[in-house]
C-alpha cells in the first residue's frame, strides 16, 4: 500500500443557492503528515472535512481514501472507522448522558463487546488524563473538559487519521498546552483547522491556507521569528 491516505481531486461543492465553496480543490494526505489549515471564516474548511467523511457529497470530483475511491454511503463506513473527526462544537459530539457511555459509543458501534468497549473507553480517558470522569454528566462539563472528552470519543475508535476542527478555540492556556502535548504524543496523521499560529506551530509540520475554494500548496506559511526591540524587552513577556 502506498503512503497516500487521502487523495481528493477536483472537488467542487456549493451549498444550495450559494456560490461554490470548494472549487476544483485538490488535497493529498500522506502517512505521518501533520497539516495545519488556516483560512478565513466561510472559506470551506469545515465543508472539506465533511466531504472527506462522506457527510456531504461533492458536486463533482473524486474522493479517494486508503487507496480506494469512495462514492456511495457504504464506502464511507470504513473511512469513518479509520478517520476520526473532532467537531467544532463539543456539544454536537457528546450526546450520551455520561462520559463513559459517550466514549464507549464508538467502540460499541464497531462491534466490540461491552467489556472490550469499556476497557477501550477507560484506557482512552486515562491516556487523556481524564480519570474519574467516567460517571460525570456530559452537559455539566466545562468547555475545556468537553473538548477533551470529545477528543476521547474520537480516539476511542482508534483512528489512523484525525481531522480536528478548531480544537483550540475557546480553551484556556493550560488546557491548550495539554492538548498540544496530547497531539504531539499521538502517532497519528492529522489535519488541524485553527486560527492560532502559536498553537499550529507547536503541533503541525506544514501550514496551508485556502483561497478561492482551493488549498494553496504553493503558499505554504512558514513559522518564523523576528528579532525586535522595545522598552522593557528584557523582562520575560509574550506577544499575542
Amino acid at each position, binding site marked *: 500500500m502506498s503512503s497516500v491516505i487521502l487523495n481528493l481531486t477536483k472537488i467542487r461543492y456549493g451549498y444550495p443557492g450559494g456560490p461554490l465553496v470548494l472549487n476544483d480543490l485538490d488535497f493529498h494526505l500522506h502517512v505521518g503528515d501533520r497539516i495545519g489549515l488556516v483560512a478565513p471564516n466561510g472559506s470551506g474548511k469545515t465543508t472539506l472535512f465533511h466531504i472527506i*467523511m462522506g457527510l456531504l457529497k461533492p458536486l463533482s470530483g473524486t474522493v479517494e481514501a486508503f487507496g480506494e475511491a469512495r462514492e456511495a454511503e457504504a464506502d464511507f463506513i470504513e473511512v469513518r472507522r479509520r478517520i476520526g473527526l473532532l467537531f467544532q462544537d463539543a456539544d454536537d459530539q457528546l450526546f450520551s448522558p455520561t462520559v*463513559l457511555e459517550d466514549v464507549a459509543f464508538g467502540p460499541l458501534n*464497531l462491534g466490540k463487546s461491552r467489556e472490550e*468497549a469499556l476497557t477501550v473507553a477507560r484506557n482512552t480517558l486515562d491516556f487523556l488524563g481524564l480519570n474519574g470522569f467516567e460517571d460525570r454528566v456530559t452537559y455539566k462539563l466545562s468547555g475545556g473538559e468537553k473538548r477533551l472528552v470529545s477528543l476521547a470519543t474520537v480516539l476511542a475508535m482508534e483512528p489512523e487519521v484525525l481531522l480536528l476542527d478548531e480544537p483550540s478555540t475557546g480553551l484556556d492556556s493550560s488546557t491548550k498546552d495539554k492538548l498540544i502535548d496530547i497531539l504531539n504524543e499521538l502517532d497519528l496523521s492529522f489535519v488541524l483547522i485553527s486560527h492560532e499560529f502559536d498553537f499550529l506551530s507547536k503541533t503541525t509540520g506544514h501550514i496551508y491556507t485556502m483561497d478561492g475554494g482551493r488549498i494553496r500548496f504553493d503558499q505554504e506559511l512558514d513559522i518564523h521569528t523576528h528579532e525586535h526591540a522595545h522598552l522593557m524587552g528584557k523582562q520575560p513577556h509574550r506577544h499575542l
Partner: protein
Amino acid sequence: MIRESFAEGSSWIHGIDPRLRVSGAAAFAVVVAVSYDFKALFTALMLSLFAVFSARLDFRTVAQRLFAPAVFLLLLWAVLPWSYEGETLTTLGPLTITRPGVTLCAQISLKTICLMVAFMALVATMTVDTLGHTLNRLWLPDKMVHLLLITYRYLFVIEQEYQRLLRAMKIRNFHPRTNLHSYRSVAYLVGMLFVRASERARRVHCAMICRGFNGRFVSLRAFPPNPLNPIFCLGVSLSLALLVTLEWVK
C-alpha cells in the same frame, strides 16, 4: 431545568432494580386506573404514601409537585358535580349537585393523586437516563427510548440557546408588551430556536454517523443484583392482589 432531586436519595427503594420499579409502577397504575371501589382506592393511596415514606422523599416537594394535577382536579370539581346526571345530592342556587357526579370526581381525584405519588416514589427516584435504559431493557421500541434520551440531553442545550437569545434581546432593551413589535420579536425568538434546534440535530446526527452509528443504541448499563429485589417483587404482588380482591371479590 429538570430537577431530579428525588433521584438523589439513598433509601432502599432507590436500590431496587429500576426494571422492577418501572414494571411495578406500571402494573399498579393499570390496577388503580380500572378500580372504582373506594375501599380499593383508599388502600392504594395508603400504599403509595407508604412508598413515598419508604423512599424518604421530602413531603414538601411531593406536595409541590402535586400542585399541577391539583389545578386540573379543581377544574373537574368545578364542572362535573352539577353537569353529571343522576340522583340529587343537594342544590346550590340554580345548580343541582348530583351524587354520581361527586362520586366520579372523588374517584378521579383519588386515582390521580395515588398514581402521581406512586410514580414519584418508584419512577422519579431514578434519573431520566436510567429510566431510558430501563425502558430499553423492558423491550420498549428503540426509537422511543432514543427520543427520550436525546430530548433529555439536548433540552439543556436548547434551553441555553433560549437564554442566550433572550439575553441578546434584553441587552437591547426589549420589554415584552402587548403590541405587535413584542409579538413579532417573541415569534422570531421561537422561530430561531426551532431553526437552531434542527441545525443542532443535523450536526449531532453527523457526529453520530462519524462514530459508526447504525441506528441501534447499545446500552452499557448493568443493573447490579440486590437482595431486596425479590422482597420488593413480593410486596408489589401482594399489594396488587389486595387491591384486586378489594375491587372485584365481594
